[in-house]
């Protein structure tokens, strides 16, 4: 009996000592997968701060070209060469990885529910409540404007949709383009034009949910209004916009040839580095006259997940845990202005443009881009439908009603909630 007690004590001692000795001696190397090839320096600085806290952990940031990321990650998982930690796309793309058993269940990670809103957590959570990703990055959307040009032409920051169009008209009358946007790169019309302004016309999160649960049809008056808004903007886009790329658009704005640019917060670092010789800022997409509620497309873009088969789950979890802290949020927000951490305690953001962007969130309804949740899971997917039809409206080849009818008819082919609607 005494012998047994000694043995148990001895065993307890060994167990207690093991982690300490291990961490002192063995260095653990983790790899982090990402699609943010532009952020290598910033992410390495962020990781350095983590490594300072946990000197025995080394993390290598190993990004893949954005268009190849999903396919690369999938094949890495299949061949057992996936990174230990990885950026996760929002909604169904990451959900599918979890469903295939590649992502670890991190529901019991301390600090999750304190750090993040339920809406943010739900993006990387299954319907049964299994959390497989830590909410990480949001990008915001709005209207960049040339402050000097606005002052010179006596244009006030628009407070209604009608004033926005009037401002664009004033710019046009004075020989400027109202908006620098163009459709040479089709995705820009989907992500920074249509889905930027759509929440204002469909009523943000609640409105979007009404489509997803079948209460609304995708060709109802709200959807038509969203496409109509694209038609409203069309006259103020640059001439021959069909052949102008994203880069052309950015330059048109930066050269002061356009007064406004419907854009995303991720452009802040680029715009700052280009140092245009005028002052610029952002405002939120204004609501049509008579509508009280305003909305901002605040898109939950990336989460962080953990490989279910990682050899170092404890160390990987330490990093995920660190991501829930205010320290992380503040570091991240200031290293990458324009990319916002999802921590509920909004950090102090030093960069004035990024701070201006995040300030738009106050008093406005926030929602993700319309097509992301639910609508990407079949063919034809909601994203492509919105993109192609918004471009067709922009070019005047179809009416907003036809665009909404196409969207409804396309989604009704596979999206059940849309199947009880009259065909377009």
């Amino acid at each position, binding site marked *: 009996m005494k012998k047994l007690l000694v043995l148990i004590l001895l065993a307890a001692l060994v167990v207690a000592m093991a982690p300490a000795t291990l961490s002192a001696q063995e260095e653990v190397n983790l790899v982090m997968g990402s699609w943010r090839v532009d952020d290598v320096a910033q992410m390495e600085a962020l990781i350095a701060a983590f490594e300072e806290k946990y000197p025995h952990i080394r993390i290598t940031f190993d990004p893949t070209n954005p268009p190849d990321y999903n396919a690369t990650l999938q094949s890495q998982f299949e061949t057992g060469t996936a990174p230990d930690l990885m950026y996760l796309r929002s909604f169904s793309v990451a959900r599918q990885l979890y469903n295939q058993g590649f992502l670890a269940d991190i529901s019991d990670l301390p600090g999750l529910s304190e750090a993040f809103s339920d809406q943010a957590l739900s993006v990387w959570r299954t319907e049964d409540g299994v959390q497989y990703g830590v909410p990480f990055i949001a990008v915001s959307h709005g209207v960049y404007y040339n402050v000097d040009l606005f002052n010179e032409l006596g244009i006030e920051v628009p407070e209604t949709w009608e004033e926005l169009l009037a401002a664009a008209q004033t710019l046009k009358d004075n020989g400027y383009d109202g908006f620098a946007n163009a459709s040479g790169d089709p995705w820009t019309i989907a992500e920074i034009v249509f889905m930027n302004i759509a929440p204002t016309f469909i009523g943000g999160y609640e409105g979007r949910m009404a489509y997803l649960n079948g209460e609304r049809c995708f060709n109802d008056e709200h959807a038509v209004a969203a496409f109509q808004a694209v038609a409203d903007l069309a006259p103020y886009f640059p001439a021959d916009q069909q*052949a102008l790329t994203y880069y052309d658009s950015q330059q048109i704005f930066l050269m002061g040839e356009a007064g406004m640019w419907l854009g995303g917060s991720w452009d802040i670092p680029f715009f700052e580095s280009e140092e245009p010789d005028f002052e610029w800022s952002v405002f939120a997409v204004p609501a049509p006259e008579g509508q009280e509620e305003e909305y901002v497309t605040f898109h939950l873009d990336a989460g962080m997940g953990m490989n279910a088969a990682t050899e170092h789950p404890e160390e990987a979890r330490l990093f995920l845990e660190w991501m829930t802290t205010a320290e992380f949020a503040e570091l991240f927000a200031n290293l990458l202005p324009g990319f916002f951490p999802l921590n509920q305690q909004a950090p102090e953001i030093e960069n004035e443009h990024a701070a201006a962007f995040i300030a738009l969130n106050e008093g406005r309804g926030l929602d993700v881009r319309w097509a992301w949740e639910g609508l*990407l899971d079949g*063919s034809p997917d909601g994203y492509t439908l919105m993109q192609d039809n918004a471009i067709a409206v922009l070019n005047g080849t179809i009416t907003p009603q036809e665009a909404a009818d196409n969207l409804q008819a396309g989604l009704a082919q596979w999206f059940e909630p849309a199947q009880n609607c009259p065909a377009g």
Partner: protein
Amino acid sequence: MMAVLEHSLRALGFAGDWQAPRRRAWALFLIPALAVYTIFMAYPLLNSLRLSFYTGVGLRPTEFVGLQNYQQLLTNPLWKDRFFNALGNTFIFFGIHMAVQNTLGLLFATLLAQTTLFGRNLYRSVIFIPATMSVLLTAFLWRLILNPRWGMLKALFEEIGHPEWFHSWLGDEKWALVAVSLVSSWQWVGLPTMMFLAGLINIPDELTEAARVDGASAFQIWLRIKLPLLRPVIGIVAILTFIGNFNAFDVVYAMMGANGPPNYSTDILGTFFYRTAIAGEHPVARPDMGIGAAVATVTFVILMSGVVLWLLWSRGKGDEGAVL
């Protein structure tokens, strides 16, 4: 080792009865090439064919579905419309290359074959230089030149007082594919030029001299003597253009992007295949290997029938082995 050497020597006919081993010697020479070809060409091709009967997520679709991928591709409007659009565009792409790139190539070669032409080597280099440039570079260059906002061509037309000559070709569904095809023709015109030039130089001088003595004009010599003798080269250039164009991807991807804008008007089989099998549609980016393999197989069948038809045709004319 010795055994191998001995065997090879015998096989090569250095010992014993050499009629039968000689036949085996051919096999010995064929084996390395056959092995390389099997591993790197035949196997992937057959595997891709096999893949087209499967469906599933990721690199290795596992669920056997028979001909369903082909049925989807050819009958489901979702796939069908894009596929036939891309197929049609590829034929136009090929047609423009034949009409512009190869015709110009023949013209340039005829001019360069004139030994009296001043600055012949300079022209030859100038015509060939684009073919040595990266596709990304030429695509970027031409996008800049054709840019409707600050493009050089627009500035040039304005300078000479004809701004109405400029059109935003790259943004126009009717013209974008033509513009891209012309850029590609511009880049590659040097290759057919060199092949035609080699063919023309190979034509014995006696023939043209005899014709000249008989009183034929330069044009008659070209039309009646040089062109018929050049026919095998023309055939080979045509088939290479056909193969190259049906596998083309880079120039459209670099100039217009993976979606073939505006409104899929520059979408060719290469970009369609890329979106289907490799990248997936943005932003889902979940490729469908099965349908992708079906697209690849259909493309292969089209290429194969083209090449076979050409072989039969040229064999009928007894062209094989001539010149090239």
